């Protein structure tokens, strides 16, 4: 556990020192959402209708943005080999790095989301559910993304490839995330959606470290 936290701490420190990652993700998120009124027009009713979906799609893309580099730096400078060789199981390494990534890029999205909901005239009923679904859903995005980042390590044009691999797998998160908010706005219970989203998280928690570790072992071989 200590080793796990050491690794999380080191990744957080790295992210904070080289800056940009967190701010870029959240800026991209905001910009992406702001583009929609320009595209579909400023009609408040239309914006309110699409707000949940737009915010979720933007969150999806924003979390994808920095994923490419999740293992890339460690892979290039040789740290990854050494991480594979530490007594900490590789699955725990994947989990620790994913956790650090989520803390740096996922949490700012959750904070920024209500602000964007205001910009899009989302009904107030949806705000709490929006934050809740993002809190449960963005870790799933980071976990699934970690698999993709490990798989594309050392690939040509890894970033584009990563989106191609990962976006189809993100669809269930998008459906249940946006579905919960829509349900809340329509006065229905968002509970089933949120439970399913939690189910995805429960499934991704063991799957992603396993698959990520398998992919990383091949990457350093």
């Amino acid at each position, binding site marked *: 556990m*200590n080793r796990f936290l*050491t690794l999380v701490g080191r990744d957080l420190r790295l992210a904070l*020192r080289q800056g940009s990652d967190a701010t870029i993700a959240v800026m991209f998120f905001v910009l992406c959402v702001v583009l929609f009124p320009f595209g579909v027009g400023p009609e408040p009713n239309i914006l309110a209708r699409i707000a949940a979906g737009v915010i979720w799609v933007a969150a999806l893309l924003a979390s994808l943005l920095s994923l490419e580099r999740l293992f890339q730096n460690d892979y290039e400078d*040789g740290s990854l080999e050494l991480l594979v060789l530490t007594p900490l199981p590789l699955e725990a390494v994947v989990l620790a790095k994913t956790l650090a990534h989520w803390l740096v890029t996922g949490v700012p999205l959750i904070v920024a989301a209500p602000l964007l909901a205001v910009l899009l005239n989302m009904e107030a009923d949806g705000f709490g559910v929006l934050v809740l679904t993002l809190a449960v859903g963005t870790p799933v995005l980071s976990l699934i993304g970690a698999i993709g980042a490990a798989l594309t390590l050392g690939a040509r044009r890894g970033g584009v490839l990563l989106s191609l691999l990962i976006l189809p797998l993100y669809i269930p998160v998008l459906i249940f995330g946006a579905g919960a908010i829509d349900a809340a706005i329509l006065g229905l219970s968002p509970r089933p959606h949120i439970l399913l989203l939690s189910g995805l998280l429960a499934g991704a928690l063991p799957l992603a470290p396993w698959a990520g570790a398998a992919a990383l072992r091949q990457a350093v071989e």
Partner: protein
Amino acid sequence: MPVFAGTDLTCLRGDRLVFTGLDFRVGSGEALLLLGPNGSGKSSLLRIMAGLLRPFRGRLAWDDAAVADDPDRHRGRAHYVGHLDAVKPVLTATENLAFWAALGGAPVPEERARAALARLGVPHIAGVPGRYLSAGQKRRLNLARILAAPAPLWLLDEPTVALDRAAIGLLEAIIAEHRAGGGMVVVSTHTDIALPGAATLHLDDFTPAGPDDGDDPGDDAGDDDEDTRP
């Protein structure tokens, strides 16, 4: 008295047979020097020893217990130094080192890190971020890593690259000290490094087309789809 040994190791990269039928044995306090031209599999052998690469065939054993049965334990007792220095540009030398020391299980990582840097003759870089270090300093930092957390087995892949003569002397002394304390060392190198009493292993002896490897094509030769030529 631990013994680290490999028997009948075969390394296959893609379809290419790098080496086959390789045996080695390193006892407590002993050193093994890997020699051979580029591509003869020195790095591959070290990576197999470290557990980064799986041998296609053969067995690695620590005191007669197969390494494959408990890979986590093996990783705890080996230090591997590869071609890349794994220095993070935004972390200071001490932070870089303390991180690896902590992962290796050192009780007071910061202190160990500073002591290791001093031992390698670069105490003055302790507070310097990695991006300002020269190639030689980065290499020393990487080598300091093996001192920061104790482990009985050192696997050093061309450790002398980028080091000056004085630093190589320091490394020789450190290795001698490690062996005196019962540690084992496996080193691959192109340059001269003084390892008194070290066994040597010439990897080109084990490549399939090597001069000593004239054994029969084997019973499966008849399965060869391209017929043998006159």
